[in-house]
């Protein structure tokens, strides 16, 4: 994967490049908008990391020029200005995502991965939350590459939760996810499945959190 990092702060550029190299990305650095513009004329990249406050040619101008030329390369904006207005404005200009400085490398890499996945048009069958991964092709849950043994009902409940990871799923909605198994699920039974799932997820860094009045939510937690 080849990335163009457009960042005028040389220190930050150097360190980000080292980090991204560590993760296996090939990174080319541009320190100004002009430089990035020149590189973009001759090279093609899988994604661009774009700082907004660049000397000469600003990030906004570069983005506008890029999009007007019909170049659809994924652009992730990394900026130190992060008012809500800025974010909306730049996403409207054609940026694909926005990350405010300072950011953690894990966050950056996660955003990059999803950006590249979307760009490749390939809906990755792999859904993840922390160490929990689900392959929707093979219909197998794994925790740190270890297969998680689940009953069909537990499987249905966990799948429903994982599809809305980070969001609550109300008890009625969760019960509905079991209907396909031709089951009438009482709230009590649902609680039993949740308790069993929690037991199986212990130590995985993933937890099912109860939010009173809202429902259940799957979330990565610090182990």
């Amino acid at each position, binding site marked *: 994967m080849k990335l163009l990092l457009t960042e005028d*702060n040389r*220190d*930050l550029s150097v*360190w*980000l490049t*080292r*980090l991204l190299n*560590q993760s296996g990305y090939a990174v080319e650095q541009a320190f100004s908008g002009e430089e990035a513009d020149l590189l973009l004329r001759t090279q093609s990249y899988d994604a661009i990391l774009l700082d907004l*406050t660049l000397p000469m040619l600003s990030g906004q101008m570069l983005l506008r020029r890029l999009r007007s030329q019909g170049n659809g390369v994924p652009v992730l904006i*990394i900026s*130190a*200005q992060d*008012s*809500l207005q800025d974010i909306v404005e730049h996403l409207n200009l054609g940026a694909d995502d926005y990350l*405010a*400085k*300072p*950011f*953690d*490398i*894990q966050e950056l890499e996660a955003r990059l991965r999803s950006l590249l996945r979307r760009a490749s048009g390939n809906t990755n069958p792999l859904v993840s939350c922390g160490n929990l991964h689900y392959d929707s092709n093979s219909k197998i849950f794994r925790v740190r590459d270890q297969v998680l043994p689940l009953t069909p009902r537990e499987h249905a409940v966990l799948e429903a939760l994982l599809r809305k990871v*980070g*969001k*609550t799923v109300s008890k009625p909605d969760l019960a509905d996810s079991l209907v396909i198994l031709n089951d009438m699920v009482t709230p009590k039974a649902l609680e039993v499945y949740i308790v069993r799932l929690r037991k199986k997820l212990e130590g995985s860094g993933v*937890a099912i*959190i*109860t*939010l*009173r*009045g*809202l429902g259940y*939510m799957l*979330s*990565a*937690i*610090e182990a």
Partner: protein
Amino acid sequence: MHSLKSRLAVWVFLPMLVCSAIDLVVTYRSADRVATEVQRQLLKGSARIIAEQMAADGGASNGAPPAAFELFADENQDRVFYAVRSADGRLIDGDAALAPPPSPGLGEQESHFKSRVRDEPVRVVAYGQDLRDGGHISVEVAQTMRGHAALRKRLFLMTAREHLILLALVLVALVVALRWTLRPLMCFSERVAQRQPGSLEQLDADAVPRELMPVIGALNGYVVRLDQTLSAYERFVASTAHHLRTSFAILTSQLNYGMRDERVTPEQKALLAAMQNTTVQGTKVINQLLILASIEQARQHAAPDQASPCTLLSETVTSVIEELAPLAQRYDVELGLDASDDGLVLSAPSHLLREITFNLIDNAIKHMDGPGSVSVRVQRAGDCALLRIIDTGPGIAPAHLDRVFERFYRANPGKLNSFGLGLSIVKEICDSLQGEIRMGAGDQGKGLQVDVRLPLVLVECQQD
């Protein structure tokens, strides 16, 4: 402090009062003169009748003719005296109590003077009359002063009444005129008073009297300069924040890099993690300060008729609860939304509502000593949306309750990772949204209950 109205009133009314007073003195004196003249004419008439009668009788004393006294109206019970004296001063007829004239005249001469008869002041008219036999008599007629005083009083009062009526008319006209002419000034001061605190709007110079233009000009000039100063300050804050964030970004990258290095020992890794945590805290403070600055900015540039964004409160609250769920899990705190009215629409940017909700719930979770629960309610309370957050934590001592909204105030200074900005941000957002926040003990005096009331949308607003 002085009022323009009362000043103007005093300076119009006082001179009028002085003029009136002078005029009344003049009037009194002329009334006195008129009354004296009337009395003198009457006395003279009476004296002439007596003198002519005496002359006709050849100087004999036959008593004064009644006609001489019919002239005097009797309504004031004035007493009339008369005396007829010969040229050598001998009393021929009349009352001896009447003193002779100081200078007995010759011929048919008339003189008048004041005198006293039996201790009562009188006006006397002396009239000389030559007799046919060459002799000379002098007739004096005197009248007490009651009629004179009564006439003078009547004349004076008549004028005084006119003056009073005039003064009353002027006073009424003055009040009306002051109200009317000073109304633009009052309107202007009301307009200034009704401005939002901290507003940097220009004052409208339309429909304002010419005399106020310098004031408006000065105010607007001041506002422009203040705006420039504040804009410079905002630019400074923004660029400082930008530089700090970039530095923090470099630091974070370096720490990330270091932590991924396989040669790093666990001890070094722990140190790097601690440094990273510090960076995260520093970033948080920068962000909080930027939010405070943006609230201030929003307040200063708020145009009253600008369409505000529309936000569903329950949506914002739900997403904040979801966001904080892992934190609650980590602190062993049971978090829940106990009541949620899904129809409450607020005219406020969602990021500000998120900031309020996030800070309050985050606070409630982090200040819990050991396991507990945090309950959130979103409900309607009259014209307001009520966001109520109750926790079962240690609560806040009453001594701290007044001060927790101050910037950098911490009820518990020993607590790590807290800078005392969260609640002041909440308070300032509430103020900027015309809401109110109250804190107190929770159910049965335990824990903490925070009530935030925000006005519901009454007008159309823009979907965010």
